[in-house]
């Protein structure tokens, strides 16, 4: 999985151990602050609701690793809560994340929400298209125009491959892709 946006470039390898737990490695580079993170990640699904037409999930996401900034290294920790609800036509998600790296980051948090709609309902194996709106809140950002970021995006997936393309309100691009093995 790779995430590239106005804030960071992120490479993420994830292994799903069972339905409730997945483990991964995350390598991040943040453009603005010239900060790098190498973290191990554990995602824990602690609640799921299945109906014939929808699925809802609640996750605990935690990361532990090393942050590097300006030649300085520090232990890096991140903890977050995430939830989503989707049908074949509508999608919503919300995530809040806090992080701390002693001497590099004295504690910060950000939150992100998404709403999405599928313009058509595709069958299994066909090309799926979602139109989404992503709203991010970074209260500790140094730049005022980066405290709240709005990103319209298109999510496309077919088979084991997913791509997201978007441009935020500051003109910053978003390119995410995920491949399942």
């Amino acid at each position, binding site marked *: 999985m790779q995430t590239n946006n106005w804030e960071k470039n992120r490479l993420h390898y994830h292994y*799903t151990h*069972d*339905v409730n737990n997945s483990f991964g490695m995350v390598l991040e580079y943040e453009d603005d602050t010239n900060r790098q993170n190498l973290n191990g990640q554990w995602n824990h*699904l602690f609640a*799921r*609701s*299945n*109906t*014939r*037409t*929808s*699925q809802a999930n609640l996750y605990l996401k935690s990361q532990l690793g090393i942050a590097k900034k300006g030649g300085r290294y520090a232990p890096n920790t991140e903890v977050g809560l995430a939830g989503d609800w*989707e*049908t*074949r036509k509508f999608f919503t998600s919300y995530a809040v994340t806090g992080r701390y790296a002693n001497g590099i980051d004295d504690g910060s948090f950000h939150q992100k929400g998404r709403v999405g709609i599928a313009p058509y*309902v*595709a*069958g*299994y*194996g*066909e090309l*799926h298209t979602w139109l989404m709106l992503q709203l991010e809140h970074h209260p500790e950002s140094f730049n005022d125009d980066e405290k709240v970021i709005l990103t319209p995006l298109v999510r496309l*997936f077919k*088979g*084991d491959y*997913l791509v997201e393309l978007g441009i935020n309100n500051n003109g910053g691009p978003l390119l995410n892709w995920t491949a*399942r093995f």
Partner: protein
Amino acid sequence: MKYVNVILLIVSVSLPNVWSNSVEASKYGEIITAHVKGMVCDFCARGLEKVFKSEKAVSKISVNLNDSVVSIRMKPDKNLPDKRIKELILKNGYSVEKITRGDAKSETKT
């Protein structure tokens, strides 16, 4: 005697069909249909397809998101118990509404 003749006639007409159906099932393997809850995302349902394909008794699997149904064709003379089917679906994070075999006559609600 008239009734006996009628019964014999019905039996003689229907027996070849019954025999033919069992030969078909034996030749192609049984079709099991699992009605699944929570299967709304194609990208996520890929995992379900993979775990069923890795079962030795399974010949083919097809996923129908519109009807929330997974159809599993077994290899000839092979079987997959309802318990195992339910286990595989639950392991992928979905819930099982019911499982039907061959036709709707044999049905297990869960």
